[in-house]
């Protein structure tokens, strides 16, 4: 400790310093404010001198101060060198002194032209291969890697929004020891001592806690260390784990395997509570693509059955959906297994629910599609359900056709719950001297009964080191906090769901001097302080046998993956004992439920809480509820009616003695007698955005009840709380009993009989007094078509658009008023009985109407039509009468009621797309069909003396769409895809009867229900 105190950056090193650690004061000020007040507090803060100075300096004082005990000469020398390199740390920030332009321009760099780099984003160990757009070395947009089989161009919301995390001003910016700023050298010195001491006892007392690791380099590093220090231990924990899937695989095959599916070959898909069409499910991007490719009613359409305990976007897309209690899924799986001919020991169907019409129909459909069907189990279902799914897939002969097995992507697939349990026991037992937590936030999200926080708080561990991006709940309880470099700032590697390795390459120097896990492990192992690049490259150099390493390396970086690393398919045999292993069903008596079942789910927007400080994700409307900034206590309509609960009511949940309060959300299609709560909210140390938003359910989550358990009690508190939902009304049936055909839908049979059903509302084109504008002479005539059958409501388009078009985040308070700014929204509609309705998604960007009602009423001509059919918005000319929005039947226009854009935070200035104007207050804005991309393509084409070809130009929403549900292009090109789509019989205009003649049209939805099953029944 004394050693460290010496380095406390004092006046002796930096004499010009006014006062010490003003950063802390500002931070405290920020932390005191809670999430919803974020925007207000920012404005207030902007007025304070400290804050202004911090912003002016770009980095807080501590970050730029020299803390090591250099000699004066050394200090001056280094200062000189850093001045010369000042451009590096600040990216494009140039020193205020005389500057010299590039004498030698970096290769390929054309100012104003972005460059794209392939890298990978990792969530739960699974890599999403991405391309990152970089403007003058600043990452500005994330796209899917179109050549990678796990992406094919699509992304998921977390990957899209991870860009905002990079620039998050709340990220930890200093290495700290007990809250005081320290240097990297001080840290390495402080750790090396105890580590070399531990080495003497073979690493005894050293514990490494990581999140799921799929990085071969990192896993190799840790394994090497463990080999040298056999007494050290590696623990893995993540609150959203695949324990159940892994245990299920062990149950079925005796080993942990990775299961993946080929949905493009599946005619019948049965989901056992698996939300495989939403981000967070491994491989979801590819699954969405494959699933959507089979939703063409003119082709060979698949059929999806979903049995689920909480309505999900996958359930909304189902042809048949059965809402059941989570504990009934196992029962259903058994019924299904029995029906496909698997003998189950100890399972008596008569004693349980008994096979229903639904069960029989599903089983018949599955047996009718042997080899072309698939059963997918959800990660929150117990191992038995996974084992049963494996058994059913085997019995149906799907393995090798639609279901494949390979080695686990997870480098250390230990049981998470057990692993953290052992760690806590070791801490309590005084066996841990040095605890290294690499990422994650176990203090916040470890199972409640372990008391991880209290174990960590006790002085049992001599040295606690935390590597993390934010100063969060865990960082608070550790001695050392090393800021973690964002994945766009550091080298690493990771495996995609099929095992393919992508090299994670940085696009920018660490903004706040963060370190990667690789570098920390190096220090731990007592190796020289190698850079992440050297470590990763070194690892692959060892793996690569040929002599052409340089070209192999360059190609791997260029492609975004290392060729030949996809896992080979594995043939696994079902353990003969499986059938007996499947546990006896211990479900509830469906007739008389004394207590309610509690369901824990990952939040669709902020996952397990790690994205709590990401404004894009916080404000991203969750796919079904369209809620933002909060998590609800979700219950079904019948239960709400019984308990006389309505929206806004706050209830108290009591589960195993723990009490948590939250507001009610009544969700159509939610099973009865079930309560769903979402993880990730109620963070106490998240940052300006996430702290305080929602309520924390982790205190109720124990190892025994990680995903669901019965025995939760609900007590109304009489309080109310407003939840900010972005959608006003969620059925197409208006309260007066009439129905609006907003999403046109038919069954496959009806569609075959009447393919033109969607055209009813169309008005004849000549229904106007004015001669129609002739667009046929133009080279380009832009249009868009959206296939509602493909759209799975994954929300990617919203985040992609937000990132591409510099769309502001407005905060919970403004969202509550209805002032969210998204240019594209995904409307979710329900139809039919509230207990089990049909669900629809409808993405709504600007329709770019040919007869645009907005243009007519603007008094200053700020919204005008272009010769290419675009409805252009001229921000400079807009005076903000909002008449255009009033007159827009689609309500796609967004108004800057206040100064919503952050014009101050320097980090955000670097993040923004330089091709898109930042809108100020008082100005209307809306979807432009990504006019900046259109113009860029047109200019490029013109320079090449050609025209923009179909497919060359993609809007941001289209590009990110994993389902390929959006097509944009030139209507004047007869062969363009958009023209082909618009020529389809399913093509219709939304509110076509208004004769607005929208350029964005929809392909009507066609469902493929089982003719045997006319009505679905709700159970549970």
């Amino acid at each position, binding site marked *: 400790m004394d050693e460290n105190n010496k380095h406390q950056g004092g006046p002796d090193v930096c004499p010009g310093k006014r006062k010490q650690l003003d950063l802390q004061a500002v931070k405290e000020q920020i932390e005191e404010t809670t999430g919803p007040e974020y925007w207000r507090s920012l404005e207030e803060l902007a007025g304070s001198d400290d804050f202004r100075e911090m912003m002016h300096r770009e980095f807080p004082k501590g970050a730029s101060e020299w803390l090591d005990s250099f000699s004066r000469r050394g200090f001056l020398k280094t200062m000189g060198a850093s001045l010369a390199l000042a451009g590096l740390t600040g990216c494009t920030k140039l020193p205020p002194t005389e500057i010299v332009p590039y004498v030698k321009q970096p290769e390929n760099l054309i100012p104003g032209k972005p460059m794209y780099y392939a890298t990978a984003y990792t969530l739960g160990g699974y890599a999403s291969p991405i391309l990152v757009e970089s403007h003058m070395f600043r990452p500005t947009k994330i796209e899917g890697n179109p050549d990678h089989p796990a992406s094919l161009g699509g992304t998921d919301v977390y990957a899209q929004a991870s860009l905002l995390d990079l620039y998050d001003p709340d990220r930890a910016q200093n290495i700290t020891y007990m809250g005081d700023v320290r240097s990297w050298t001080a840290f390495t010195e402080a750790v090396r001592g105890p580590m070399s001491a531990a080495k003497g006892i073979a690493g005894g007392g050293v514990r490494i806690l990581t999140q799921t690791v799929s990085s071969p380099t990192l896993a190799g590093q840790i394994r090497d260390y463990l080999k040298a220090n056999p007494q050290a231990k590696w623990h893995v924990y993540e609150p959203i784990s695949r324990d159940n899937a892994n245990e299920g695989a062990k149950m079925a095959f005796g080993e942990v395997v990775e299961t993946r599916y080929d949905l493009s070959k599946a005619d019948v898909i049965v989901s056992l509570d698996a939300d495989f069409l939403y981000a967070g499910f491994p491989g979801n991007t590819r699954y969405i693509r494959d699933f959507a490719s089979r939703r063409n009613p003119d082709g060979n359409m698949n059929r999806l059955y979903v049995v689920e305990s909480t309505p999900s976007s996958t359930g909304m897309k189902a042809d048949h959906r059965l809402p059941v209690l989570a504990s009934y899924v196992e029962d259903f799986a058994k019924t299904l297994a029995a029906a496909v001919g698997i003998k189950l020991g100890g399972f008596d169907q008569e004693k349980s629910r008994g096979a229903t019409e639904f069960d029989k129909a599903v089983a018949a459909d599955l047996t009718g599609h042997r080899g072309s069907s698939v059963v997918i189990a959800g990660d929150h279902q117990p191992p038995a359900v996974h084992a049963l799914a494996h058994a059913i897939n085997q019995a149906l002969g799907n393995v090798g056709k639609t279901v494949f097995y390979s080695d686990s992507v997870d480098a250390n697939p230990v049981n998470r719950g057990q692993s953290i349990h052992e760690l806590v026991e070791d801490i309590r037992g005084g066996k841990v001297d040095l605890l290294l937590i690499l990422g994650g936030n176990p203090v916040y999200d470890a199972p409640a009964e372990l008391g991880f926080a209290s174990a960590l708080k006790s002085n049992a561990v001599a040295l606690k080191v935390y590597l993390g991006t934010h100063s969060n709940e865990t960082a608070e309880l550790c001695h050392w906090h090393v800021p973690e470099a964002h994945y766009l700032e550091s080298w690493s590697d990771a495996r995609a769901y099929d095992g393919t390795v992508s090299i994670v390459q940085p696009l920018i120097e660490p903004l706040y001097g963060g370190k990667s896990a690789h570098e920390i492990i190096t220090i731990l192992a007592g190796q020289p302080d190698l850079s992440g690049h050297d470590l990763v490259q070194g690892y692959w150099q060892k793996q690569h046998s040929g002599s052409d390493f340089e070209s192999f390396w360059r190609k791997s970086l260029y492609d975004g993956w290392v060729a030949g690393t996809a896992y080979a398919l594995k043939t696994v045999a079902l353990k003969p004992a499986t059938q007996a292993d499947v546990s006896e069903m211990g479900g509830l008596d469906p007739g008389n439920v004394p207590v309610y079942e509690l369901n824990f789910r990952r939040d669709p927007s902020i996952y397990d809480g790690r994205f709590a400080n990401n404004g894009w994700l916080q404000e991203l409307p969750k796919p079904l509820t369209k809620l933002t900034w909060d998590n609800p206590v979700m219950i079904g309509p019948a239960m709400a009616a019984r308990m006389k609960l309505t929206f806004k009511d706050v209830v108290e949940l009591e589960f195993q003695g723990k009490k948590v309060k939250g507001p009610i959300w009544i969700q159509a299609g939610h099973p009865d007698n079930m309560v769903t709560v979402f993880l990730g909210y109620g963070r106490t140390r998240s940052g300006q955005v996430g702290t305080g938003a929602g309520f924390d359910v982790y205190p109720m989550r124990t190892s025994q009840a990680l995903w669901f358990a019965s025995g939760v009690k609900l007590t109304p508190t009489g309080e109310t709380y407003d939840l900010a939902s972005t*959608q*006003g*009304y*969620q*059925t*197409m049936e*208006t*309260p*007066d009993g*009439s129905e*609006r055909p*907003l999403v046109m839908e038919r069954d496959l049979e009806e569609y075959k009989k009447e393919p033109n059903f969607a055209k009813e509302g169309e008005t004849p084109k000549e229904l106007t007094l004015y001669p129609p504008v002739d667009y046929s002479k133009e080279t380009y005539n832009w249009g868009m078509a959206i296939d509602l059958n493909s759209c799975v409501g994954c929300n990617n388009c919203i985040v992609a658009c937000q990132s591409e078009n510099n769309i502001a985040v407005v905060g919970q308070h*403004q969202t509550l*008023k*209805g*002032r969210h700014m998204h240019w594209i*929204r995904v*409307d*979710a*509609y329900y139809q039919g009985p509230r207990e089990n309705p049909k669900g629809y998604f*409808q993405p*709504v960007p600007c329709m770019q109407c040919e007869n645009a*009602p907005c243009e*007519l*009423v*603007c*008094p*200053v*001509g700020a919204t005008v039509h272009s010769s290419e059919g675009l409805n252009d918005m001229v921000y400079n*000319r*807009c*005076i*903000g*009468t*909002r*008449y255009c*929005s*009033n*007159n827009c*039947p*689609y*309500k796609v*226009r*967004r*108004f*800057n*009621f*206040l*100064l919503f854009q952050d014009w101050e935070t320097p980090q955000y200035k670097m993040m923004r797309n330089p091709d898109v104007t930042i809108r100020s*207050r*008082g*100005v*209307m804005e809306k979807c432009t069909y990504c006019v900046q991309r259109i113009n860029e393509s047109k200019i490029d084409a013109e320079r090449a003396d050609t025209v923009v070809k179909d497919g060359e130009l993609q809007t941001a929403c289209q590009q990110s769409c994993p389902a390929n549900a959006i097509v944009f292009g030139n209507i004047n090109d007869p062969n363009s895809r958009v023209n082909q789509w618009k020529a389809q019989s399913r093509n219709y205009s*939304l*509110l076509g009867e*208004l004769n607005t003649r929208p350029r964005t049209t929809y392909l009507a939805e066609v469902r493929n229900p089982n003719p045997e099953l006319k009505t679905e029944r709700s159970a549970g």
Partner: protein
Amino acid sequence: MATQTQIPVEVPVEDQRAPVIEPGHSFSTIGEKVSNIVLKRPVSLGWIFGFLVMFSVMNMLLMAMGYLFLKGTGIWGITIPIGWGFAIINFVWWIGIGHAGTLISAILALLRQSWRNSINRFAEAMTLFAVACAGIFPLIHTGRPWLAYWMFPYPNSMNVWPQFRSPLIWDVFAVSTYGTISLVFWFVGLIPDLATLRDRAENPVIRGIFGILAMGWRGSARHWHRYETAYLLLAGLATPLVLSVHTVVSFDFAVSIVPGWHTTIFPPYFVAGAIYSGFAMVLCLAIPIRAVYGMEDFITMRHLENSGKVMLATGLIVAYGYFIEAFMGWYSGNTFDSFLLWNRLHGPYAAWYWSLLTSNIFIPQLLWLKKFRTSTFWLWVISLIVLVGMWLERFIIIVVSLHRDFLNSAWGMYYPTKWDWMTYIGTIGLFLTLMWLFVRVLPMVSIAELRTLLPEAHVREEEEVHK
């Protein structure tokens, strides 16, 4: 007086109706009575107190506007889909109120309704002040008010013009023309009275001021001739404006495609509504003023009763408008229109709609009864209710139509904020502050025109011509 064009019939003393001017007045008593309020009457504590109250309410408006300019229109309750809220409601309401003055001055002048002569002056003043209040809103409701001048077709180097197809531009012209004509009309009418005040004023400073304002009026026959001609021409000019302003204001809604706005009945229905609320405001102000300043002789029960009748008539037109809207909602078979009707009757703002029907249609039916028409108390109460009702009408038209339009997903709710209320109440403060000042510094009834109501103003030949 020989060339007078507006010839009132003789004072109808034998008529059943109340007289438009009580007997016993001569040229000089009228002049004295009216001008004494301005020149002689001491400033009472009540007046000062009232003025201070109104002045502080007006300052609330300034505060609300200051904060608005600082922060943006987000301080109000407006949102997407309800892009217009209190600002436009108040604009239409004030413009409506501003209709009575010109209607009384111009149209009734052309129709030779002599009873108008004693109420036209302050009705015109009221018009001006109401238009001033109304004029604030289109400016401040814009997102960037410092650029609101772009709505005017001014020459600029970029050759950018307003977008003339937008009804908001028509509004700019309609309201600014109306404001200008009303001001000129009012001032021209004031000139002979200003001269009277000049002549009666004893304080040289006041005499000087009135002298300048009187523009050298000497009351010569030539002056009277030109005055009457100008007045007549202005009346002719103002008359179409009375009809056009609110017609154009109604286009703001009728031209759009929003269900509940997109209606051809809007122009006549808006004009009737405007006159309705205008007369309500006239009564609302005239009844207390005549009591306080002892003007019962000039503003007689006949005036009040006539105003009540106008209210009844216009109120019935408005009721017809509501009926047709509802009927068309049902008859058209259009889902959006029929839902609009349902939503008004049963939606979240149903209470507001029922209050509107009550205050605009049901309660004013009391005016059929002479007992209510001739009771100052009831007239005053009813006119207040009508003013509230007409405000509610605009609320229903604007907010309720917008909050649930075509796409169910985009429905929303509107909750006015304290800034909305402060701005609205603040304009009432501004209006009353101006009225407060007006009654003390200018003749609130027209001396010259009142004199024409006296028998001695009538020349026999003209009387015969008239018979």
